[in-house]
C-alpha cells in the first residue's frame, strides 16, 4: 500500500518536471548563462561587486546604448534574432565544493548554455571541472590563478590576465623604476594567503624574483581570514625586505594594513594584489591605504585616454550609486565575450560556441581595459593580450602610475613613513 503511494507520488513529480522542462524551447528567445559568485559568506561583498558588473554588461547587451561596446547599439543579439541574455546566478559561498555542485545544477537543471564566474580561483577550478565534464563552455574574466589555463581544458577560456603575468609585471615595474629613477631594490618579502590564489602568486613571484635577480628574504604563507596577523608581520619585521608583496583577499588586506601601521612597518614600497583594490578596502582603512601599489586591470582614470571607460563608469555610478571598481570591471567582460561568440556561432550548441570562442578577436577600442584586444591562445585559451598595470593609492583614490605612458599621476616612491603623515 505504502509502496504504491510512493510510486504514485514519484510519477506525478516526474510528470510535473517533464512539463516544466518542455516549453523552454518554444519560449521567446532567451539565452541562459549561468553565473557563479560568492553571494554570501566571507567574500559576499566582492561577489556583489562582480554581480553588478555582469548585470550592467547584460543590461547594455540587451538594451540600446550609444556606446562603443559589442551589441550596445542593438537590443539583444541580432544574429540570433534579437535573443537576449539571461543570467542565472548561483551562490558558491566561496566554497570550491559548492562551486562544483552549483555548476552542475546550472548546467543540468537550469540548462544554461555557458558559465561565467566564480571570482575565487579555487572555486573556478572546481566549477570549470564540472563544465568541462559536461561539455559546456566556461568564460572566466575574474579569476587569476595561472593553473586555471594550464590544464589543457577544451571548454575553459580566460579573458583577464593571470597572476603569472601580473607577478611578472610587478618585477618589470621594479626594473623600470631602477632605470628611470636609479632607486635600487634588492630584497623582496613575500606574504600570501594559502588558498589557490595566494599560493600560486607566491610560487610565481619566487620564480620571477629569481629570473629578475632579486633576493627573497621573507617567504610567508599564512591561513586566510585570520583573526590576528601579528606573527606574519613580525616575520616581515625581522626580515626587513626592501619591498613587500602581499597577495590577499579583502579581509586580510584590511587587517594587514592596520597591523603594518601599528607596527610601523615601512619598506620602500608595497606591491599588493586583489584585496587592496576591492571596493570596500579604502572605505575601511581610509588614508592608511595611501601610497600602496596594487596591480590592476582597470582604473577609473583610464577614462582620460579612453572615453568609453568614463561612459561605462558613469552608467555604473548612475545605476548603483557607487564608483566602479576593478572586480566589477573584470566581471563586466565575460558576457560580451560570450555574446560575441554566440552571435558568430549563430547557435547555442556548446561545440559551436567553443569553436567561435577560439576565433574571438575583439579589438581593444571595444572594451574598458588598457589591452590591445581579446584573442585566446589556441592551446591554453588564455587571452594573449591581457596584462596588468599598477595603480597607486593617493588621497584615497586609485591612480594609474605604471606603465609610465599610461600614468595619470606621478609615482610616490619610496613609501612615506607612517609617522610623517598628517
Amino acid at each position, binding site marked *: 500500500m505504502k509502496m504504491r503511494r510512493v510510486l504514485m507520488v514519484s510519477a506525478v513529480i516526474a510528470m510535473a518536471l517533464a512539463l516544466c522542462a518542455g516549453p523552454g524551447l518554444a519560449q521567446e528567445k532567451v539565452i541562459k548563462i549561468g553565473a557563479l559568485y560568492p553571494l*554570501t*559568506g*566571507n567574500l*559576499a*561583498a566582492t*561577489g*556583489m561587486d562582480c554581480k553588478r558588473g555582469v548585470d550592467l554588461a547584460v543590461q547594455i547587451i540587451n538594451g540600446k546604448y550609444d556606446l562603443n561596446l559589442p551589441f550596445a547599439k542593438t537590443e539583444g543579439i541580432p544574429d540570433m534574432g534579437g535573443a537576449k541574455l539571461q543570467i542565472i546566478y548561483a551562490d558558491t559561498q566561496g566554497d570550491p565544493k559548492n562551486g562544483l555542485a552549483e555548476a552542475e545544477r546550472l548546467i543540468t537543471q537550469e540548462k544554461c548554455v555557458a558559465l561565467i564566474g566564480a571570482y575565487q580561483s579555487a572555486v573556478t577550478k572546481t566549477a570549470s571541472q564540472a563544465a568541462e565534464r559536461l561539455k559546456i563552455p566556461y568564460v572566466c574574466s575574474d579569476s587569476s590563478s595561472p593553473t586555471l589555463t594550464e590544464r589543457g581544458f577544451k571548454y575553459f577560456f580566460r579573458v583577464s590576465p593571470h597572476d603569472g603575468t601580473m607577478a611578472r609585471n610587478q618585477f618589470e615595474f621594479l626594473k623600470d623604476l631602477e632605470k628611470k629613477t636609479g632607486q635600487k631594490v634588492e630584497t623582496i618579502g613575500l606574504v600570501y594567503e*594559502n588558498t589557490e590564489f595566494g599560493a600560486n602568486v607566491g610560487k610565481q613571484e619566487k620564480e620571477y624574483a629569481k629570473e629578475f635577480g632579486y633576493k627573497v628574504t621573507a617567504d*610567508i*604563507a*599564512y*591561513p586566510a*581570514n*585570520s*583573526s*590576528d*596577523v*601579528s*606573527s*606574519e608581520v*613580525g*616575520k616581515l*619585521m*625581522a626580515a626587513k625586505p626592501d619591498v613587500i608583496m602581499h597577495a590577499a583577499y*579583502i*579581509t586580510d588586506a*584590511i*587587517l594587514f594594513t*592596520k597591523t603594518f601601521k*601599528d*607596527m*610601523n612597518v615601512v619598506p620602500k614600497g608595497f606591491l599588493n594584489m586583489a584585496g587592496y583594490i576591492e571596493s*570596500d*578596502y579604502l*572605505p*575601511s*582603512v*581610509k588614508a592608511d591605504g595611501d601610497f600602496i601599489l596594487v596591480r590592476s586591470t582597470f582604473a577609473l582614470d583610464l577614462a582620460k585616454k579612453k572615453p568609453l571607460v568614463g561612459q561605462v563608469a558613469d552608467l555604473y555610478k548612475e545605476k548603483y550609486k557607487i564608483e566602479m571598481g576593478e572586480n566589477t570591471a573584470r566581471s563586466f567582460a565575460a558576457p560580451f565575450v560570450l555574446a560575441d561568440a554566440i552571435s558568430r556561432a549563430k547557435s547555442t550548441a556548446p561545440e559551436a560556441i567553443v569553436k567561435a570562442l577560439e576565433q574571438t578577436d575583439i579589438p581593444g577600442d571595444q572594451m574598458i581595459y588598457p589591452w590591445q584586444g581579446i584573442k585566446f591562445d589556441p592551446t591554453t585559451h588564455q587571452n594573449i593580450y591581457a596584462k596588468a598595470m599598477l595603480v597607486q593609492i593617493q588621497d584615497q583614490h586609485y591612480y594609474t602610475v605604471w606603465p609610465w605612458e599610461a600614468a595619470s599621476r606621478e609615482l610616490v616612491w619610496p613609501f612615506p613613513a607612517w609617522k610623517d603623515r598628517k
Partner: protein
Amino acid sequence: MQILAQQLVDGVLIGLVYSLLAIGLTLIWGVMNVLNFAHGEFLMIGMFLSYWLYTLAGVDPLFSIPLNAVALFLLGMFIYRFIISKVMTGPPLAQLVVTFGVSIFLANFAAFIWTPNYRFIGHTIFSGTWHLSGIILSVPKVISSVGSILTSGAVFWFLRHTRTGKAILAVEMDREAALIMGINTERINSLSFGIGSALVGVAGALLATHYYIYPFVGGTFGLICFCIVALGGFGSIEGAFIAGIIVGVVQTVGGYLFDPAYKVAIVFLMYLITVWIRPQGLRG
C-alpha cells in the same frame, strides 16, 4: 629577540579577547549543555551595534559597551525563550542543530539588511600606539584586553558572591539537586544564556575598536572559541580564561617561530594533545 617579545605581547592581547568570548560560550555550555553555534554571530551583532551607534549617533565603541551588554542580554534571553528552550526537551541532535540554524539565520539576515560590505570604525578616542622599551602596543588592543580582564573579573565576582551567581554555579554542578533545593532552573537557564550573550556583546564593542566588521565575521572567531572552551574544560570559566590566553600566545609566537601557515594547525595540535592527555580539558 625584541620581535619575539612583541609576539608574546600581541599574543596575550588577542588571547584576552578570546578569553572573554570563550567565557560566554562556556557558561552557556556549563549550565545547560547547549553548544551555542550562534556565538560568533552574537559577536557580529555586538560589533554592528557598536558600529551603528558610532556612525549614526557618534557614540564611541567604548561607551557602547553597557548598551551592547543590555541589548545582547535581551537578545540572548529572547532566543533562549523562544527557540532554545523549545528543543531542550527534544533529542540532543535537535539542540545541536537549532543553534546552528540560528547562526546561519543571523549571519544571512545581517547580510540582507546591512549588505555584506566591510566596515571599519575609523577613529575611536583611544587610537594609535604606545612604545614601551622597544615593544609597540596598539592602544585599542590594550584597551580591549583591559576591558576583557575587567569584564571577566566581574563575571567571576558575580558568580561567587551573589545569590543568583551561586544559583548558576549550583545548576552547573548538579541540575537536579539544584532543582530540589528550590532553584528555578528554567530561569537560571535563560539568565545564563543572557549573560553569556551579554559577554559576547561586550567583546563585540571591544573588538569593534580595531577589527573590521561584516556579517560573516563570527566565523573567524567562532571556531577558535570552541577550541578554547574544549581546551579549558567544558563549562570551566577559569579554564576558558587561561586557555584563551594560551591559544593567543601559541598562535602568534608559534606562527612567528615556525611558519604562519601553520599557526592555526599548531593551536589545534596543542588542543589534540591536551585532550589526549587530559580529555576533560585543563580545568574540567
